């Protein structure tokens, strides 16, 4: 028997504010911590100089570059990616009506991996220079999205089961292509960076990636937050959604396109960072309940904080070498998740 969940829910506004403050502190922490020891006062001074266009002494130029050109864009991108994965995770779970789905269940990340590895391993799109990786990853994510959409479509529109099955099946296909490329590549270092990309890493972050990723994630999140009530209806069932005037067929199509675009963008800049998009929605639901208006207000902030710290760990644990951040999110996420599940507060899908 499912236990009654007389939920002790945390009010959203204080929680969001607390997370926002925590995020700001995490951003500062993420910039201040790293393999190259830069003191906190110096870090803050460099940040201040960067923000206000101030001057830095010549002998500090190297450290300033580390803080402003390497760490800050990386930390910001980490926050944006974490927020995007968390928001998309919430929406995908509602869209396929399955609490175990994550942003990658639609096969989009595996598709993006094909494009990214074509660049890493085969040197494709060399003409695009530093943009080759992101552009190729995003283009193949879109191609994967179109393919999944075309295959999953039925006279009833995109049904949840067809979406999951199609996404999963095509993901295997994309992964096979990637594996063939990795095995075919002669260069060991290339295989290593392909691996890094498959597990997700923020190591390649540059300022150039930040604005586009930020705009996409914020726009996607805004849209999802705006449709949060309709997502509630969709989560209850297509017939319920229809009866409530939410137009489930069209809504699912829109959610698919929005989540695919955000996933494609996020994966293009950071690879497939696992677990954030699965775990954050769950943890947030445990804290604030299932109502998507509340979940979508909190989840992106939680995802951002989580990924910023996961990235800090990935840089520090084996410094100067780096772990793929996806390893950290899994290593931290799995036990936390099991612990929360065992506490039994959360009726897992009512069963």
């Amino acid at each position: 028997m499912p236990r009654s969940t007389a939920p002790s829910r945390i009010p959203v506004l204080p929680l969001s504010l607390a997370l926002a403050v925590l995020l700001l502190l995490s951003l500062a922490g993420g910039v201040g911590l790293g393999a190259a020891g830069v003191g906190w006062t110096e870090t803050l001074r460099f940040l201040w100089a960067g923000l206000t266009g101030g001057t830095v002494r010549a002998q500090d130029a190297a450290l300033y570059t580390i803080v402003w050109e390497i760490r800050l864009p990386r930390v910001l991108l980490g926050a944006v990616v974490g927020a995007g994965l968390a928001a998309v995770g919430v929406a995908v779970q509602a869209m396929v009506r399955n609490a175990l789905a994550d942003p990658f269940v639609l096969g989009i990340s595996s598709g993006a991996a094909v494009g990214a590895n074509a660049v890493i391993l085969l040197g494709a799109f060399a003409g695009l220079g530093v943009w080759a990786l992101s552009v190729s990853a995003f283009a193949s994510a879109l191609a994967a999205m179109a393919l999944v959409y075309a295959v999953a479509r039925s006279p009833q529109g995109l049904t949840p089961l067809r979406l999951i099955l199609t996404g999963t099946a095509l993901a295997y296909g994309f992964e096979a292509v990637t594996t063939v490329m990795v095995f075919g590549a002669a260069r060991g270092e290339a295989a290593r960076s392909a691996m890094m990309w498959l597990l997700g890493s923020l190591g390649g972050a540059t300022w150039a990636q930040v604005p586009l990723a930020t705009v996409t994630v914020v726009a996607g999140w805004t849209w999802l937050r705006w449709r949060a009530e309709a997502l509630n209806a969709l989560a209850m069932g297509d017939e319920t959604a229809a009866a409530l005037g939410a137009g489930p067929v069209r809504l699912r199509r829109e959610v698919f396109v929005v989540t695919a675009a955000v996933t494609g963008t996020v994966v293009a800049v950071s690879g497939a960072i696992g677990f954030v998009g699965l775990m954050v929605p769950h943890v947030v639901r445990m804290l604030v309940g299932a109502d998507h208006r509340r979940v979508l207000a909190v989840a992106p902030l939680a995802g951002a904080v989580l990924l910023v710290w996961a990235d800090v760990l990935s840089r520090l644990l084996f410094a100067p070498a780096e772990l793929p951040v996806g390893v950290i999110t899994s290593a931290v996420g799995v036990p936390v998740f099991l612990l929360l599940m065992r506490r039994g507060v959360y009726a897992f899908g009512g069963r």
Partner: protein
Amino acid sequence: MRLDIEDVTIEAAGSRLVEHIDLTVGSGAFVGLVGPNGSGKSTLLRSLYRALRPAGGVVRLDGDDLHAMDARAAARALAALPQESFAEFDFTVAEVVAMGRLPHRGRTAASDREICTRSMERTGVTHLADRGFPSLSGGEKQRVLIARALAQQPRVLVLDEPTNHLDVAHQLAVLSLVRGSGLTVLAALHDLNLAAAHCDVLYVLDSGRIVASGPPQDVLEPPLLAKVFGVRAHTVRHPETDTVQLLFDLLPPTT
């Protein structure tokens, strides 16, 4: 509000699920739709709450074409209890009822809350407000879903097997709750005695077509029940209320 189904035909994957249905529910009337499994009851109801679009014919609400209306405007006029039941997400009862306000978005949160509170009072689920919907019993769930439908402030209510999985007391409670709502109601029902006791008019659906309609005592005649349901029916009078009750046996093999 009056509901008119005019010559409605619904197709799926090339086959006709229901054909040329004409059905009228007068304002404030409680009309029952009965028929064997697979006769097309749910299909017809789905087209009313716009989960399906008819291939032919028109559904009218007070004369207006339902499928030409804006989806939210339609949901403000007509609420439904579909049969589906997903429990993947742990919404509370209060949250489920609040979903009924979705088609009314743009009003103030305070009036929304008050309407939801009143809907829950009417169906007697106020004490369940903070419970997780998936953890409720079948009867509680059904009452919560009726509260959600009432929160839509509709004028027509469409119910697909509202008494499914409910014990006798809950079956009666749910139907009198609906009856007492004063709304125009069209309900698909399995239990013919329940249908006879609660409905003003019954329509009998068989293989996608209406084969009989009228007041329950006129419609539920043994020859028709034999033909449509394949059962032998006896009518007896209820010793206290004097209403007609049906008793059933399987028809003897014909060959």
